[in-house]
């Protein structure tokens, strides 16, 4: 069968999300950030909220998220996205406000902002890309780096006796009364991508329904920071990260 017999509006099953613009993303080949950007764009479009969504982008590789998804954005100083989102949501209660943050941003420099926004039950959604490393700055250890994992700042591997253990910050956030949804997902297979999309949709709906803070952690790969090719990085992620950061709902009220 040739192409013309198969292609057309009736047979279309997947295309670039409408709210993802034509600007090519700066991410390394195979980076999980791109996949999650698509999900955010698809969900906002499906909810019909393109005009009433405000995203807050972080410092980290996703600092340019505002260049790729065609909604309103504010870029925050490193780690401060939940504080910025707090102000935006309180001043614009009719908007859907979410942050998009890496593990260095959310769980290191921004720990205080994250915990207190969640504890106040701010009506925002937090999309948390946990790739166990500082990707943007060249692969330094993050609070989420696995024990024995090699990074540029723990070249012998993370030693928990000196550097502490991987910080399960979403488990901690789930304990807070302000949090209505704390879930951990991944995007390394098509099935996982679809599940993550459902949880992002729920988080955005919660934010509009004033149910409190929703956190969707996406266990991700950073092949460049991990010094692997993209396929190996996804496999390594599945084999090593998911036992420390298992997929599933920690809280879903």
């Amino acid at each position, binding site marked *: 069968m040739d192409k013309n017999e198969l292609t*057309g509006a009736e*047979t279309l099953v*997947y295309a670039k999300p409408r709210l*993802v613009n034509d600007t090519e993303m700066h991410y390394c080949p195979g980076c999980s950030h791109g996949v999650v950007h698509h999900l955010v764009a698809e969900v906002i479009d499906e909810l019909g909220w393109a005009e009433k969504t405000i995203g807050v982008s972080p410092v980290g590789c996703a600092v340019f998220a505002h260049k790729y998804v065609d909604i309103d954005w504010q870029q925050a100083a490193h780690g401060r996205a939940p504080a910025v989102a707090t102000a935006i949501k309180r001043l614009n209660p009719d908007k859907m406000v979410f942050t998009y943050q890496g593990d260095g941003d959310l769980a290191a420099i921004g720990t205080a902002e994250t915990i207190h926004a969640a504890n106040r039950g701010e009506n925002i959604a937090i999309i948390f890309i946990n790739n166990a490393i500082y990707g943007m700055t060249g692969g330094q250890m993050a609070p989420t780096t696995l024990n024995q994992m090699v990074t540029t700042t723990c070249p012998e591997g993370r030693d928990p006796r000196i550097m502490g253990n991987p910080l399960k910050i979403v488990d901690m956030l789930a304990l807070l009364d302000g949090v209505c949804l704390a879930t951990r997902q991944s995007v390394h297979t098509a099935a996982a991508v679809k599940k993550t999309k459902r949880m992002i949709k729920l988080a955005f709906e919660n934010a509009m329904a004033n149910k409190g803070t929703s956190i969707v952690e996406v266990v991700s790969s950073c092949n460049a920071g991990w010094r692997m090719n993209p396929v190996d990085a996804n496999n390594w992620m599945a084999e090593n990260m998911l036992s420390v950061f298992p997929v599933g709902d920690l809280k879903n009220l």
Partner: protein
Amino acid sequence: MAKVKGYVEVNTQRCKGCNLCVVSCPADVLELQPREVNDKGYHYVYMKNPDDCIGCANCGYVCPDAVLTVYRKKIEEKEKV
């Protein structure tokens, strides 16, 4: 008997040759160009075995760069005796 046929359109200039779509395909349809590269210098993906595509869209979902457009059509086949 109804059979499902798929087709994948590749925006070759957007592709970064990461190979994630290739390993996600259950029907071994895709491959990176062994020699050709796009303007960015990446070996972009193409349909090596187009007849085997079932239009499941796995490749589209896992692609970080929104390179792929996927189509799926049910084909009515005459029963073979």
